[in-house]
């Protein structure tokens, strides 16, 4: 291993970290909002539920990379769009990458949310009903807090998987960590050293996020006791 070379490459790659993080944060927040909307839609009517199911089916059934390409390259096929006011935005690789990541994340997150909601026991809901709680109060005080706690481990996995997925943005010319690594390799031809450096950056990032989620989980699940959890069933 050429330590001098690694010491030189590492800071170069780190320069892409802000872009990686901003892609992840934006698409995760957008995805979360969209997922909540999808859940609302699912609960609203039969047609809404069909649409939500179809959306999830499409986005989970195809590769993320093709979704990115469809938005980045595909939209250019429509002259109407090319001449529209939106075009300066939709031409931007950054916007396209965030859009694709966000739409994709929404599909997975809405499924996670659905699982969390399903795990809220009917007893807890009955107790809220019988206390005369209105629907919004019940949602805010009982259902969503319980669903959120239930969904947290799965959502943590989704967060790390989105952070990793931001590397695909490099394919549409964005110079985040993977993009910078790719550029560096095309100059130095030292693929192993450079890509391993990039891998370390992601590994550290993912480890930090995993720790954070575990910490949050531990804080929120003090109410759960492994020994007694099942006894009152």
């Amino acid at each position, binding site marked *: 291993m050429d330590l001098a070379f690694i010491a030189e490459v590492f800071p170069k790659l780190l320069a892409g970290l802000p872009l990686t993080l901003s892609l992840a944060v934006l698409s995760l927040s957008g995805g979360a909002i969209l997922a909540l909307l999808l859940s609302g839609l699912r609960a609203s009517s039969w047609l809404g539920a069909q649409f939500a199911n179809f959306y999830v089916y499409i986005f989970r059934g195809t590769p993320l990379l093709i979704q990115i390409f469809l938005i980045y390259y595909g939209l250019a096929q429509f002259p109407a769009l090319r001449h529209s006011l939106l075009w300066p935005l939709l031409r931007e690789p950054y916007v396209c990458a965030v859009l694709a990541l966000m739409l994709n994340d929404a599909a997975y997150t809405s499924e996670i949310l659905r699982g969390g909601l399903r795990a809220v*026991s009917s*007893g807890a809901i009955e*107790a*809220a*009903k*019988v*206390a*005369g709680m209105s629907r919004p109060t019940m949602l805010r005080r009982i259902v969503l807090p319980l669903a959120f706690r239930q969904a947290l481990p799965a959502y943590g996995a989704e967060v790390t998987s989105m952070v990793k997925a931001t590397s695909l943005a490099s394919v549409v010319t964005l110079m985040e960590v993977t993009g910078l690594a790719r550029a560096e390799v095309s100059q130095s031809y030292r693929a192993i050293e450079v890509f391993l450096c990039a891998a370390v950056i992601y590994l550290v990032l993912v480890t930090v996020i995993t720790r954070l989620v575990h910490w949050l989980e531990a804080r*929120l699940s003090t*109410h759960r006791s492994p020994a007694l959890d099942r006894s009152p069933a």
Partner: protein
Amino acid sequence: MNPTTVRTPTTVRLANIHKSFGRQEVLRGIDLEARDGDVISIIGSSGSGKSTLLRCIPFLEIPDQGEVTVGDETIVLTGAGHRFSRAERQKIRRLRGQIGFVFQSFNLWPHMTALQNVMEVPLHVQGRPRAECREEAEAMLAKVGLADKRDAWPAHLSGGQQQRVAIARALASRPRALLFDEPTSALDPELVGEVLRVIRALAEEGRTMLIVTHEMAFAREVSSHAIYLHEGRIEEAGPPQQVFLDPVSERCRRFVRGQAGPVD
């Protein structure tokens, strides 16, 4: 139902309640009245409709037909599949606000501590001041003998303790009537006593209560009236001495004997 001369006001009244699940008719015209201070125990074999009857009062089950009154709120049902108007839904919520319900399986909110469970409704549904809610919730927990468990999570409590917290929660909303749906059926035998003691103390305070239970000796002792339900109809009703010791109905006699036998 109260034969004494002083007519106390009615707290809960059911009139001609019918309820079917699919083709199965579970309740076939039930009339029942609980006046202030009555303790009514409802007994019957499983499948007699006693739990369904109790769950009809706060509309956890929606009766197909009949009339439900709690305090000043009356809701009239005209047929299965009744669609409630906005006003009716609000009425149901107000009606629910006047009763405390204790479930067989406790149904504490698992993400809240004991104290938070008890404070939840006064604070977030009734909108009373926080300090007052806390003080009263602590008093309620003390009353059920769990003052020291105020910060415990439900999952860390025994079944008997959970059920006592659930009773404190039901009391905290200052209900006019308390409904108990087989409150000790999900408990290990050695935990039944602590819960029954709490319910007995509440009866002695003169609270209005309806209790669905299998604990015959307990029911006989605490109730002012008893009802024996069979196949969705009231087969026997009267003072506990009559229903438990000398019922008119032969079926009721057999049921009470069978229950009081070796099972006790």
